[in-house]
């Protein structure tokens, strides 16, 4: 009988931990994009929303929790990836996808690549927004709207963001449905629907973030760019 501490390090326990943390990060992304969409309502609305959020005394605790979930997800997936490499030391000369009903896709085959890309992206992204140049907003809090405008004024940066959102979409394309299966949920009627819904939501999140980045770039104040 395995000890309870060993439960989470077994191959099944690892899946559960990665599934729970992955699903939590997906839920966070839903809140994240909902907040970001408020940028369309202009600086006053957006900064007011940010101020309400940031003035919540529980926020540092939530941030720490999010960081912990993120780090556990990264640590467990990297450990799993390395031990999975050991499980097949000699590769096939020829290996083809087996086809239906396999769920193997380009996205599922490149989870480690998309994951590592997102690790780099998130470091750059958090540095720019959480620890970037701060401006005060007269009505309270910081002028996050201006910060976002400045962060996304460089076309190279916008291109990097849009590319990274494709990677987010790819990671979620397999990740959402995979997390559901990892948590032991499988139902003859509901699983096919969850698989499809996961892919649609993944695409919506990716496209949504891309539209926000592109809109911010095209609506730079004082650049003469036309509002669309």
């Amino acid at each position, binding site marked *: *009988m*395995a000890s*309870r501490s*060993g*439960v989470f390090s*077994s*191959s*099944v*326990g*690892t*899946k*559960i931990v990665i599934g729970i943390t992955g699903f939590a990060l997906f839920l966070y992304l839903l809140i994240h994009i909902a907040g970001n969409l408020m940028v369309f309502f202009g600086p006053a609305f957006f900064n007011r929303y940010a101020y309400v959020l940031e003035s919540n005394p529980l926020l540092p605790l939530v941030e720490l929790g999010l960081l912990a979930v993120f780090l556990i997800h990264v640590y467990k997936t990297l450990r*799993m990836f390395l*031990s*999975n490499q*050991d*499980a*097949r*030391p*000699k*590769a*096939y*000369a*020829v*290996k*083809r*996808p*087996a*086809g*239906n*009903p*396999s*769920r*193997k896709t380009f996205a*599922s*085959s490149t*989870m480690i690549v998309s994951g590592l890309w997102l690790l780099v992206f998130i470091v750059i992204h958090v540095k720019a927004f959480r620890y970037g140049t701060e401006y005060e907003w007269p009505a309270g809090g910081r002028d996050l709207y201006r910060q976002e405008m400045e962060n996304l004024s460089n076309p190279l940066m916008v291109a990097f963001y849009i590319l990274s959102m494709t990677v987010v979409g790819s990671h979620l394309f*397999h990740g959402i*449905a*995979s997390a559901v*299966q*990892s*948590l*032991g*949920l*499988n139902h*003859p009627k509901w*699983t096919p629907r969850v698989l499809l819904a996961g892919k649609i939501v993944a695409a919506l999140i990716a496209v949504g973030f891309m539209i926000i980045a592109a809109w911010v770039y095209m609506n730079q104040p004082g650049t003469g760019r036309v509002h669309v």
Partner: protein
Amino acid sequence: MRLTLKIWRQAGPTVAGRLVEYIEDHVSPDMSFLEMLDVVNEGLIKKGEDAIAFDSDCREGICGMCSLVVNGVPHGPDRGTTVCQLHMRRFKDGDTITIEPWRAAAFPVVKDLVVDRGAFDRIIAAGGYVSFNCGGAPDGNAIPIPKDIADVAMDSAACIGCGACVAACKNASAHLFMSAKISQLALLPQGQPERYRRVTAMVAQADAEGFGSCSNEGECEAVCPKEIPISNIARMTREYVKAALTASK
């Protein structure tokens, strides 16, 4: 039919192997894949060369011995079929076919296309059994089991332990095999006394054997000659969680 065969040759477990090319001119479309290899071997033996070692037993798709990766797919291109039930009419004259053994750290190559699947036996020995003495055969209707439950248990029990799931998985994971064995016993009354001990011990044994984890791609289900679905893997996860939550020691 004339075929170009690229076959993995490896003299023993500790020596390096390589793909060797053979041209076979006299292949009938009515031959099974293994009969085609028999013909190749007859030619090799006549020339005084070492025959290609490959596993087979019943040659009717029920024993789980045959284990060839054909053109990158375990058991070849047909769904729900072992490689012994694959026929040469599935290929075209002039085709090149690559044949490799199952590849996994836990399935070391014994010779050529033969691998040691003893790891599966050790997983079963760790818990894939019912150990109490049930006495004589009970009356068929003494323990009522709902038809739908009996069906799912029977479908799980169809696993022949061939190892194609491990061979297909990018992580060489044994989760589909284990989950089929765990499901068939967890669903039936006879499996209840050892239910949670079983899942914990089998997962621990599979990890110790060096099989990988599961990435939920489902390649295993697609190559399984018995078409065992990955819903079994989800059931194994549930069993594992219940075992962890209810473990008494």
